[in-house]
């Protein structure tokens, strides 16, 4: 176990360095000139020259990467050109928002996806199974932004039950906070629930057909116990991996959903920064989210080992 962890941690360092190079390099491929965007409508030549100098836009890419990486190692993610605020403070501001939204979405996804998957596997080829499949297909094929706008029209404009958009931090007023995040979390969780349902169903079907399940049944165990204790536990391994990876994706920002519900999380920050060519912000946020993603992968591996003793070497 320890050897495995050490090996994985050693792999992480070069991965992050490579990721940072990729982020930096790919961004330079974006068409457009950050100085031109920064200079505003008037584009005064003196102002343009000053911006290029201040943000080292005249230097070659490797030189700029060097300065950026040096800053990152010293804990400085740089400064937003557009807002004149440190990137680290922006990340600090957005991280709790995105975490809350991702966690709530995951609760929706797990709460709907896994039971639906179990039911449809156990009640294979019955109305339950077909119903769950229709639901999964609906969840997968409904575009987030469309579902989001429909929910806003129903619950905010027509029924006046929930605020149409915006965000209130949990610490400020937890009721309002849940009120502002429940719709976007449902939209995000809905799509994910469908994926989880399909995977749970597949894994469960495989497990239910396995020898040990037959043996458990032959021993005279109750069906509920067979399903939950024997089949589900083994079927969960791939579902956990998927859940962890999807959680990582949620953390990197739900771009469209955050835009529709005006949730000030990572997704919105990245989109705005890309359109404004605010390089430092994009680099900082992507670096942070990819690091989180890599760490979640590691956590998934650990969880894997806990669930499946055969992997503990």
């Amino acid at each position, binding site marked *: 176990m320890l050897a495995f962890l050490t090996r994985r941690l050693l792999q992480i360092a070069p991965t992050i360095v490579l990721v940072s190079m990729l982020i930096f390099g790919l961004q330079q491929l974006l068409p457009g000139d950050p100085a031109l965007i920064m200079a505003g409508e008037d584009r005064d030549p003196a102002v343009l020259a000053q911006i290029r100098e201040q943000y080292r836009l005249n230097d070659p890419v490797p030189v700029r990467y060097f300065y950026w990486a040096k800053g990152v190692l010293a804990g400085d993610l740089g400064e937003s050109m557009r807002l004149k605020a440190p990137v680290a403070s922006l990340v600090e501001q957005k991280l709790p928002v995105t975490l809350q939204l991702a966690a709530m979405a995951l609760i929706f996804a797990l709460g709907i996806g896994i039971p639906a998957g179990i039911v449809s596997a156990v009640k294979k080829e019955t109305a339950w199974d077909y119903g769950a499949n229709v639901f999964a297909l609906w969840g997968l094929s409904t575009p987030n932004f469309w579902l989001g*706008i429909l929910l806003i029209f129903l619950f*905010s404009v027509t029924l006046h039950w929930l605020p149409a958009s915006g965000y209130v931090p949990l610490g400020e007023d937890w009721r309002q906070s849940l009120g502002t995040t429940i719709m976007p979390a449902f939209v995000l969780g809905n799509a994910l629930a469908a994926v989880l349902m399909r995977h749970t169903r597949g894994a469960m079907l495989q497990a239910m057909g396995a020898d040990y399940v037959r043996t458990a049944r032959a021993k005279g165990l109750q069906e509920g116990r067979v399903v939950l204790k024997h089949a589900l536990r083994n079927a969960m391994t791939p579902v956990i991996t998927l859940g962890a990876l999807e959680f990582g994706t949620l953390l990197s920002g739900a771009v469209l959903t955050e835009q529709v519900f005006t949730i000030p999380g990572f997704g919105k920050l990245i989109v705005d920064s890309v359109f404004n060519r605010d390089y430092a912000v994009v680099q900082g946020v992507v670096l942070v989210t990819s690091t989180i993603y890599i760490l979640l992968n590691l956590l998934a591996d650990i969880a894997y080992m806990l669930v499946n003793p055969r992997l503990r070497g």
Partner: protein
Amino acid sequence: MTKTLRRLALALLLSAAAAGSAAAQSNLRIGLAEDPDVLDPTLARTYVGRIVFASMCDKLFDIDQKMNIVPQLALSHETSEDGKTVIIKLRPNVKFHDGEDFNADAAKYSLERHLNMKGSFRKPEIAAIDSVEVVDPLTLKLNLKAPFSPLLAQLTDRAGMMVAPKAAEAAGDKFGLHPVCAGPYKFVERVQQDRIVVEKFADYWNKDKVHIDKITYLPIVDSTVRLANLRSGGLDLIERVLATDIKTVREDKKIKLSKAVSLGYVGLTVNVANGAKADNPLGKDARVRQALELSIDRDALNQVVFNGEFVPGNQWVSSQNPYYQQKFAPPKRDVAKAKALLKEAGVTAPIPIDFMVPNGVELRQVAEVVQSMAAEAGFDLKIRLTEFATSLKQSEDGNFQLFLIGWSGRTDPDGNSYSFQVCNQPQDVGHYCDKEVEAAHQQARAGADLATRKAAYEKVAAKVLNGGGPIIYLYHPQVLVAHTDKLDGYVPMPDGLIRVVGLTLK
């Protein structure tokens, strides 16, 4: 028993509600179309930022609904005979949000900050100022390098915003994180991309006309969601309503819509001399440009895309502007004449044109309508939808033949024309250059009164309109603002900025 309990509960609820409303602060929630950039008047550059400044930072001058320059922190101005000095009298008893006094020293500090600060976007706007002198505590003297009549108009915008010297000096380039000005509301907090909160400033010079306790600005990019928020009561006022949503807004009895013709325009910029791509009939021959203009029916365009709500136009100012040239009314659509002009120019149809269009719902529709109209005269406009930031760079590099682009507009006509029509200016992306036009513009800049300046602009119009110049102007948008019927006192202004003094919320 249950009845008594119910009554008691009701009474309690009612008294709680009454107490709540007595203590509640009024909060005006304004939906913005974008998240503003840095909130420092010297370093800011976005239109949406100006909307927020309108409640925080008073300016030396302001404009009224008819675009006259009116006093704000200044009381009066006087320009010398030779046009090279401007004396400004300042309003007495004005305080900044941190309690510091506003006087000539503070005004000098602000103007010099705009002129000298590293990265200042105001510098080019007031570059005509050579030096600023304090005559007495309430009198300021500006010495100009040359007569420059658009100067006062510049002082009605960010260049005229006054910042508290001590606070600005202490914060340096971080002033925008906590701006301190002399406007009706002072800064409370900002959460990037979420909200900006300002509260009533108790010592404001015009405090009797400030009735709302707090304003919260909420950036909501999606126009459908912005409108849904207004309709559901989550917002009290939204800016930049889409023309296509006007019907929905008018059908809702609880919402009021207000319109003002914007100071800006949208037009077709032609690449006449910027690189190899200019080498085509449209770039090289004014007759071909005139033919393109004649193929377009501006009224039909307005009807199809904007439900007839916008204002068709063929000049850099709208027909409501005092500088509009009556002699050059928009030409009627005339396909036969367009074809004749093309024949005269020796061009055979179809004429392929690379037509760059920034990606966006409205501009894309405009481009499609123009494309189909121009096709009838023999133009084959090939629409190339391009992301906005990329389109700016490509226009700079001359990577276009025709570019559909707008300008948000400035109070003085100089701000809508000089940078676009004069040789080697930053906005002249098509590299148009004509010495006579340049000379006429210089006359307009030096002219002291409307008549002199308008005469100079007439010379410009004669050269650049009807295909002569680099831009075929199409229309002037409307500044569309929608608000709840609980809000009173809202006055639409041509610059689209939301003036908060005088507003009341029921």
